[in-house]
């Protein structure tokens, strides 16, 4: 065999080895990336929870303080989750439910009866009774839970939407 064809065979083997190594790396790379990303973009199924309003007139200007308690999947665990909402009936067939999760970094705001504002304990974000930002770092008004009324029962969704969105689903 001439020297030239020997070199070609050598080159062929080299390219072949790199191709196989590249294929293995690419295939495992895709599989490993999918595995590592895993459930990161999976969202919890929305649950509807029946609540009862405290119509005694106390609380933030006609709002009732409502604690939503529900079961939540946390990977392989099932945990109980809680979220706080301020709920008010605005019409016979409509309620609004303000989420107490601050839009800055998610702390739970508390109602200040004297100043008639919501105040966040973390960075002093302040909101009006309707959830609009008065001062502090919050970038947006308090979010609203989706709500609906079925046979006179008030249902709140575990999902919240930005204020201004269509929060009330008619059934």
């Amino acid at each position, binding site marked *: 065999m001439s020297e030239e064809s020997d070199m070609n065979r050598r080159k062929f083997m080299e390219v072949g080895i790199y191709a196989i190594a590249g294929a293995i790396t690419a295939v495992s790379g895709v599989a490993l990336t999918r*595995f590592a990303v*895993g459930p990161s973009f999976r969202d919890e199924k929305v649950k509807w929870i029946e609540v009862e309003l405290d119509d005694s007139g106390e609380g933030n200007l006609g709002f009732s303080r409502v604690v939503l308690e529900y079961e939540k999947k946390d990977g*392989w665990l099932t945990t109980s989750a809680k979220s706080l909402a301020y709920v008010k009936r605005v019409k016979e067939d409509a309620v609004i439910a303000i989420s107490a999760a601050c839009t800055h970094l998610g702390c739970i705001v508390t109602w200040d009866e004297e100043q008639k504002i919501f105040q966040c304990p973390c960075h002093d974000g302040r909101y009006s009774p309707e959830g609009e930002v008065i001062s502090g770092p919050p970038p947006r008004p308090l979010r609203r839970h989706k709500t609906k009324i079925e046979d006179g029962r008030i249902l709140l969704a575990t999902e919240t939407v930005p204020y201004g969105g269509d929060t009330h689903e008619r059934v």
Partner: protein
Amino acid sequence: MNVFKHIYFWVDERLEMHDYIKKDILDKPIPKGLNLSYCFGGITFFLFVMLAVTGYFMTLYYVPSPEQAYDAVDYLTFEVPMGQVIRGVHHWSGNLMMVTIFLHMLRVLIYGAYKKPREINWMSGVCLLCLVMGFGFTGYLLPWDQKAYWATKVGTSVMGTVPVVGDYALRILRGGPDLGALTLTRFYTLHVLFLPLVTVIFLIAHFVMIRKQGISTPL
């Protein structure tokens, strides 16, 4: 592509690694007359790399706790995308590794490659065999299912039958008289921290020695 070449040469101009990588690693000549049976060591190393990579990724989901281990393994296998593939590769690489190690040792025995001056490399290989068996033993418990539990119960009890030191060995291995949470955490730590570190050290020694002494040529 040009960019990568540019970066490569920029780095190489400073570190001057190109000739070394080319001549001593990628284009390193091997003796004439070698056959496929000389590949088993390399295949074993390949499987080790696969095990390391899949193992690293599985720690994203695994929890070494008696309450959660089984559910976490079930979750990472069936709920996480590619879970069955990743865990399957780990499982089968582990099984195949014992086969390829056996064939690798058999070849070394048949060709007499363990003889002077390569006795130390043979010894390091025997240590690696023990380490791999340690991986197998500790990894078997981690899914925390019935098979894992009873296999480890039997395995550690066998240790207890050794005269004089048996009971000490059993207790140290289990972290107490009974198999439980303490056993699971120490098997986990052995499997993912201690054994890999020691194995890598032995692997480096194994490879450096074979490079220094060269492959033993066929009879």
